[in-house]
């Protein structure tokens, strides 16, 4: 488990200080895929770089399985870093080395015997589906292939954690999807916990089990994806997760309900049922469903146009059909 405690990072600047992170507390459970999402400048990259101590936090602790990395001596820090792999937006491959030699690089650093390193590189390249490109140089690879090599390289030392700093932001949608599936496979098959820094909601939707929403250097909210996605509490989370919802609530009118579908429920024709069985006309103001982690999740905002009694009946009907709803306005 990686735990961040009161993590604060302040950069000195000409006009005083720039606070990049303020009192960030976060626990990344083993085996999870933890998304950290936020707008540009929210402090996402600083956060991930602090986990690896590429940036030294101004205050606070980074605990790796209970051991404080910020207090570790240089040599111990090098060892701890080997249990955390990292991939980057720009891949950061060694341009003068072949794909296989790039994967062997971290093994050379910890003086793994040559034969063993060679075999490990072959295994990893086959894991990421690039066996036939082992002898290619980065300049001969596409963006997606480069990121695969980077992933193989990050996994070479059998880390328990993998940090992804905007790893798919430079890739097209199809390639992004294939990289995300690869990360998921790595999480599932190797049990590596993954921290995904991104500004794209769909990345979190596709693979994450947990999410933290970062806003202006602070964590606005964090938790399991289905919880945060179903009931975003903070303004920023609502903005990121259901941007159209806020707009749909703006109009005036009858009482509005936000229905939340949490896996499976959205297959039933609840709304038409509402109209047919109860005879209550519901005006759909907004609807958005998506599949996360194989289950269907969604939001729908309806406006109940009936009188008090009818509306109460509608609420009962919804509750009876296991639809979670929340009054809005």
């Amino acid at each position: 488990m990686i735990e961040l405690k009161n993590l604060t990072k302040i950069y000195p600047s000409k006009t005083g200080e720039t606070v990049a992170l303020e009192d960030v507390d976060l626990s990344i459970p083993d085996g999870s895929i933890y998304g950290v999402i936020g707008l540009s400048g929210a402090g996402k990259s600083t956060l991930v770089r602090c986990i690896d101590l590429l940036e030294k936090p101004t205050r606070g602790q980074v605990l790796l399985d209970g051991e404080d990395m910020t207090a570790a001596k240089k040599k111990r820090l090098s060892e701890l870093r080997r249990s955390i792999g990292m991939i980057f937006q720009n891949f950061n491959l060694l341009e003068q080395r072949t794909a296989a030699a790039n994967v062997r690089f971290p093994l050379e650093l910890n003086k793994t015997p040559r034969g063993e390193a060679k075999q490990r590189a072959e295994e990893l390249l086959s894991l990421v589906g690039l066996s036939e490109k082992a002898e290619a140089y980065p300049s001969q690879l596409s963006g997606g292939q480069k990121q695969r090599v980077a992933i193989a390289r990050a996994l070479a030392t059998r880390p328990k954690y993998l940090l992804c700093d905007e790893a798919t932001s430079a890739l097209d949608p199809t390639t992004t999807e294939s990289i995300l599936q690869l990360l998921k496979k790595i999480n599932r098959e190797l049990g590596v916990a993954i921290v995904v820094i991104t500004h794209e909601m769909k990345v979190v939707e596709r693979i994450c089990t947990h999410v933290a929403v970062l806003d202006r250097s602070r964590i606005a909210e964090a938790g399991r994806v289905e919880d945060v996605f179903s009931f975003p509490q903070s303004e920023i989370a609502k903005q990121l997760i259901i941007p159209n919802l806020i707009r749909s609530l703006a109009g005036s009118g009858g009482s509005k309900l936000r229905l939340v579908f949490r896996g499976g429920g959205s297959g039933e024709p609840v709304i038409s049922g509402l109209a047919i069985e109860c005879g209550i006309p519901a005006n759909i103001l907004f609807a958005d469903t998506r599949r996360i982690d194989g289950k269907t999740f969604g939001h729908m905002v309806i406006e109940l146009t009936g009188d008090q009694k009818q509306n109460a009946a509608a609420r009962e009907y919804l509750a009876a059909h296991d639809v979670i709803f929340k009054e809005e306005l």
Partner: protein
Amino acid sequence: MSDVLISLFRDNTMWLGIWQTVYLTVLSTALAYAIGLPLGVLLCTTGRGGLAPVPWLNKLLGAIVNIFRSIPFLILMVAFLPVAKAIVGKSYGPAAMVVMLVIAAAPYVARMVESSLKEVDAGVVEAAKSMGANPFQIVWKVYLPEAKPSLLVGAVIGMVTVLGYSAMASTINGGGLGQIAIFYGYNNFKDDVIWMCVFFTVIIVQVIQEGGMFLAARTDKRLRAKAGRAKKCGRK
């Protein structure tokens, strides 16, 4: 062709001069790199934002390098004759000349090495750090191999510069084409001797330049991508 020039070819003085020029240039450049390369690595790594920032050391080394680089070679040569004597026992001859060339070229090499290393993508260095590489490993396994093509180009420029200096250094009886041009040509009013020496010097420079560039291009694994990009630009 004057008699002097003909006799220079006959008694092999000219060929010996060419050999000496090549030999002294290569030797001096190699020794200049022995000092300049570590110095350049230190300049790059101890600087602000470098691998292991040591500001005072960086400032000190930078100042020393700048001082040596701002002294014109001719003056440096005269001023450091006692140093050459202390090192090789003589203040004249080929050995003294090598000392002069190394003193002049090492700071120059250091700056070129520094700039080559600074071209290495900071992201790659960061990636190596995140894998637990120590500063020594980063220099050895990231900076130097990644900067290799650029370092080779720098070495070519350095070698040609040393060759130019070596002509001047010939005046302290160091040997080589420079000495032949002065002693047999200029002092004897034989212009053809001077021009013949210039001709051979040009040939040597060409060989170093083209050979070095060929080597640099061949070792650079990024070249394919560059060629591709160039083509794209061409099509536009």
